[in-house]
């Protein structure tokens, strides 16, 4: 993989200036997740709109590599204004296309951490289905 593709400007921009960074106190849905390979951590907080269905606000905090944090930052922009059920069904490729860089299997886990945590949060709050690949994350509780 060409070096410049991996850390293209948009990734570095999201990493250095993450969108949706922060915490929502008393959030309607929240979850934490960790990538055990490298110790990346992400917590996600969701606030639903008046219909109790549409994602009105979403914030995250975490620490980790540029890929995990930038991808989560991009994710917050992608999901705002969409319905919980739609996000529960959102294929991972939709996010990966947005991230737009070729990723090795290990880095794929970094890029998908935020999406997994968001799906867990929605699953817990709304009972939306949680695909098997993320089922294990539902058991995690970070201290």
């Amino acid at each position, binding site marked *: 993989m060409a*070096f410049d593709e991996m*850390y293209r400007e948009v990734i570095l921009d999201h990493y250095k200036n993450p969108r949706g960074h922060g915490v929502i106190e008393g959030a309607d849905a929240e979850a934490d997740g960790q990538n055990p*390979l*490298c*110790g990346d951590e992400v917590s996600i907080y969701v606030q639903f709109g008046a219909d109790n269905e549409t994602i009105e606000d979403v914030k995250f905090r975490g*620490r*980790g590599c*540029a890929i995990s944090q930038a991808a989560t930052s991009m994710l917050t922009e992608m999901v705002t204004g969409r319905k919980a059920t739609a996000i529960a069904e959102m294929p991972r490729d939709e996010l990966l296309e947005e991230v737009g860089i070729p990723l090795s299997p290990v*880095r794929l886990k970094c890029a998908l951490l935020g999406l997994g945590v968001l799906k867990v949060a929605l699953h817990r709050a709304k009972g939306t289905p949680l695909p098997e690949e993320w089922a294990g994350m539902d058991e995690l509780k970070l201290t």
Partner: protein
Amino acid sequence: MAVTSARQLDAAALRAQFPIFEQAGGARRLAYLDSSNSSQKPRAVLDAMQTFYETSYANVHRGVYELADRAAAAFEDSREKVRAFVNAGSQREIIYTRNATEALNLVAYAWGLENLGPGDVALVTELEHHSNFVPWQLIAERTGATFAAIPIEGGNHELDLSKLDEIAKRGQIKVLAVGLVNNSLGVVNPVSELAAWAHEQGAICVVDACQAAPHRPIDVQTLGADFVAFTGHKMLGPTGIGVLWGRQELLQSMQPFNVGGGQIRHVSLEKTTWNDLPHKFEAGTPPIVEAIGLGAAIDYLNEVGLESIEDHEVEITEYALGRLGEIFGLTIFGPPLERRGGIISFDLDGVHPHDVAQILGNEGVAVRAGHHCTQPLMKRLGVAATTRASFYLYTLPEEIDRLVDGLHRAKKVFA
């Protein structure tokens, strides 16, 4: 640097004996700084395994035909090489396992389950690899024993031995599990001192020697420990084979960990009795060819000389500490050179270790980024992960230079 009489090794010449380094020449040739994760293999080891498969392979300790005898003899010859390598008193004390993790689990289950209970303390350290930490945590939980860890002090991240008296008040210390050389920061622990303290408490001492056995001479008879575990793949040998050394009287007193074929003396509906040491702890067909490979690796290490390897690593580590010290914003964890193995873990300000390792990887420099199976230590250091470079007998100064160049590049990307 210590001046010794060991002959200086020629890393470049040794390197030529490792087929992996022949691959992909030019600017992207491999700078392999991940040997504490797993070492590369010399042709001698690969050839020994191939030749054994082609000329001497059969199952061991089962057949009565000539080929089976030859296979068994070679398998036991390797055990003798392992025995001599750590200066064990007897081959009966050398148990083959799949890896060091299995060896440590063997002690935790076979010794710990029987000997720990409420009021007892299973003591590890904050520097332990998960493999010498989690088994004791689990066994403590199962038996109602207390689980505790010797903390590290802030400065050099070495064990804080001033806390020992306080820890001793928490109960009857029954086991101390400690590494000889810590895998994530390279801290060399004062194991003989700790083993003596453990014995004063009436405890046994279980030593993880994975990061020591490949790099410096070990003598289990003077070390003072009761069990010592190490693995083949970090010391030029193949994966799939580990070693547990244990004091014979302890091994005798223990029930087996795995049971089944090969480790029994007699089986009936009423009762089963166990085979002699070491076979009692080697259930099932063992890693035969891997044992041959480990034997060949030990021959290779002996030929080069462990003192020479240690000297070379001290030299490389000193050079690396100096070069890395030039980089602004880079923090090195761990002790000074005198109490450090050939391992350097660091943090590059503003760049996550995963990104550091990726950028280095793109330059052909292989390092490890992560928690190195020492999450409690990472928490203590206040980081999620570190970047770790580790060295071996084939490490060249120019590989360190390429590491440094790559780190400057990483800084530039994330500036």
